[in-house]
């Protein structure tokens, strides 16, 4: 969807002045500073810069959705004074990570149904139980809120959306931050251009987060060749213990 050229005219001159600016009518173009985040030995989390251009004047919303998995939420209750996990609810295809960045508060950008259709904002994420039969909506809501709250505490869901800032009438950028505990997988980064409360253009790109080097090798080894990994863990422990004995007996 392109906007009519007439509307673009006032901003076109400024856009051309910027080196990276598109020719008029290019629509939405965005890219990430990195497409691969490598989890190495010294990984403490990282920031990825997203930059792009739009035709200007519209609002920009960026979402990052991590690989989806079913997620169990458990609730503790007291039995004889001790807190014990009692009820649980399994949610379907929950994003392991979710972040949103916006150029303006979401509720000022579009109506709730539009936001919900594109899963813009944490409160508009589709988080539904695997089996909702016979469950009260309030019960599900309590577990859903707890899911989001726990994810926010783990810093895997953004609590305060970072701003998308405009560097000119059409050039925008935002910084997406990933904590050290970010789960590996393929992440979908979506950039939405909204005007008058409707999505005018959208662009999707993938971001791969993966363990590399020794960490990846060890993890794969432990998962795929578990018996050998277990034996090697035993050999490592015994030989280190033996080595220490030898060293300290000499001194």
């Amino acid at each position, binding site marked *: 969807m392109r906007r009519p050229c007439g509307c673009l005219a006032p901003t076109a001159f400024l856009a051309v002045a910027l080196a990276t600016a598109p020719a008029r009518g290019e629509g939405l173009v965005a890219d990430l500073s990195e497409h691969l985040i490598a*989890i*190495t*030995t*010294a*990984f*403490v989390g990282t920031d990825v810069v997203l930059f792009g251009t739009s035709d200007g004047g519209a609002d920009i919303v960026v979402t990052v959705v991590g690989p989806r*998995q*079913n*997620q*169990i*939420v*458990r*609730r*503790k*209750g007291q039995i004889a*004074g*001790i*807190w*014990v*996990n009692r009820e*649980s609810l*399994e949610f379907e295809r929950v994003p392991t990570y979710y972040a949103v960045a916006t150029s303006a508060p979401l509720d000022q950008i579009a109506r709730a149904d539009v936001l919900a259709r594109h899963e813009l904002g944490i409160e508009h994420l589709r988080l539904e139980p695997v089996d909702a039969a016979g469950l009260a909506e309030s019960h599900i809501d309590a*577990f859903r809120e*707890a*899911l989001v*709250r*726990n*994810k926010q*505490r*783990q810093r895997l869901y953004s609590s305060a959306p970072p701003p998308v800032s405009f560097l000119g009438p059409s050039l925008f950028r935002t910084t997406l931050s990933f904590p*050290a*505990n970010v*789960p590996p997988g393929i992440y979908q980064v979506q950039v939405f251009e909204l005007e008058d409360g409707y999505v005018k253009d959208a662009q999707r790109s993938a971001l791969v987060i993966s*363990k590399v080097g*020794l*960490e*990846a090798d*060890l*993890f794969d080894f*432990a*998962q795929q060749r*578990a*018996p050998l*990994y*277990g*034996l*090697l*863990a*035993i050999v*490592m*422990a*015994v030989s*280190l*213990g*033996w080595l*220490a*004995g030898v060293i*300290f007996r000499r001194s």
Partner: protein
Amino acid sequence: MVIYLPIAEMSVNLFLLLGLGGAVGFLSGIFGIGGGFLMTPLLIFIGIPPPVAVGTEASQILASSSSAALAHMRRGNVDLRMGMVLVAGGFMGSALGVWLFALLRQLGQIDLVISLCYVLFLGTVGVVMLVESVGAWFRRRSRPGTFARRHRHLWLHGLPFKMRFHRSRLYISALTPLGLGFFVGILASIMGVGGGFLMVPAMIYLLGMPTAVVVGTSLLQVAFVTAVTTYLHAVNNYTVDVVLALALIVGGVIGAQLGSSAGARLRGDQLRILLALLVLAVCVKLGHDMIVTPSDPYSLASASHP
């Protein structure tokens, strides 16, 4: 310096791990204990997922107990026959324990069971040890030279399958050490401990073994059982983190050497009073955490299928 633990999937400061290993190693050097009952809760306190803490701690105990067991064997302080019966029981117990562990994890009750086991066993052992050591301290101050009778006849000694254990100068049913090994094997795989804190008193008071061979023989059992536990956790639960184990072993080895020289300067009953207080402190902390209202009663757990 931060390192990423590939199995725990989190970043931890390397010096924190070396320090923890060193501090617990120091205490185990002083008291002559494995230290698993301190290390596993400490790992959980710093945020390591409980299953990974338990699985990995088994490999650390393996490192320290295997080298100590070798040293005792060289000095001839091991009853090999007794050790093998205990190990056989331990293997069966460990297999059952790892299976139970996976089941409880699926049910979402593993954290609770780990804590409950800790509170129960640390509480009992701590109180018994405190009473005994305070009593010994007072007796020594009033009139030295009284000995408690070591060997008593219990119903256990009437069991069948009698076996002669020359090194321990015992003729008892093989079922008793087999059962003891089995029970400690279950605890070792669920709690992430070696089980020496239960094994040593049980060998003295229940089996009636001479103190000289008790430590060496229990270390032999602990080494074999933690080896099997490490393997079974790695294969069934994928919860052995070798990077974490490496850091803990290196810290632990250094700490243990410093600790054993410090321990040599303290007297036995004083050491046992201090150890009992330490055991009770861990017990109280874990018990408190189970009773106090959690900051959030809800928690997340990954589903087994996508």
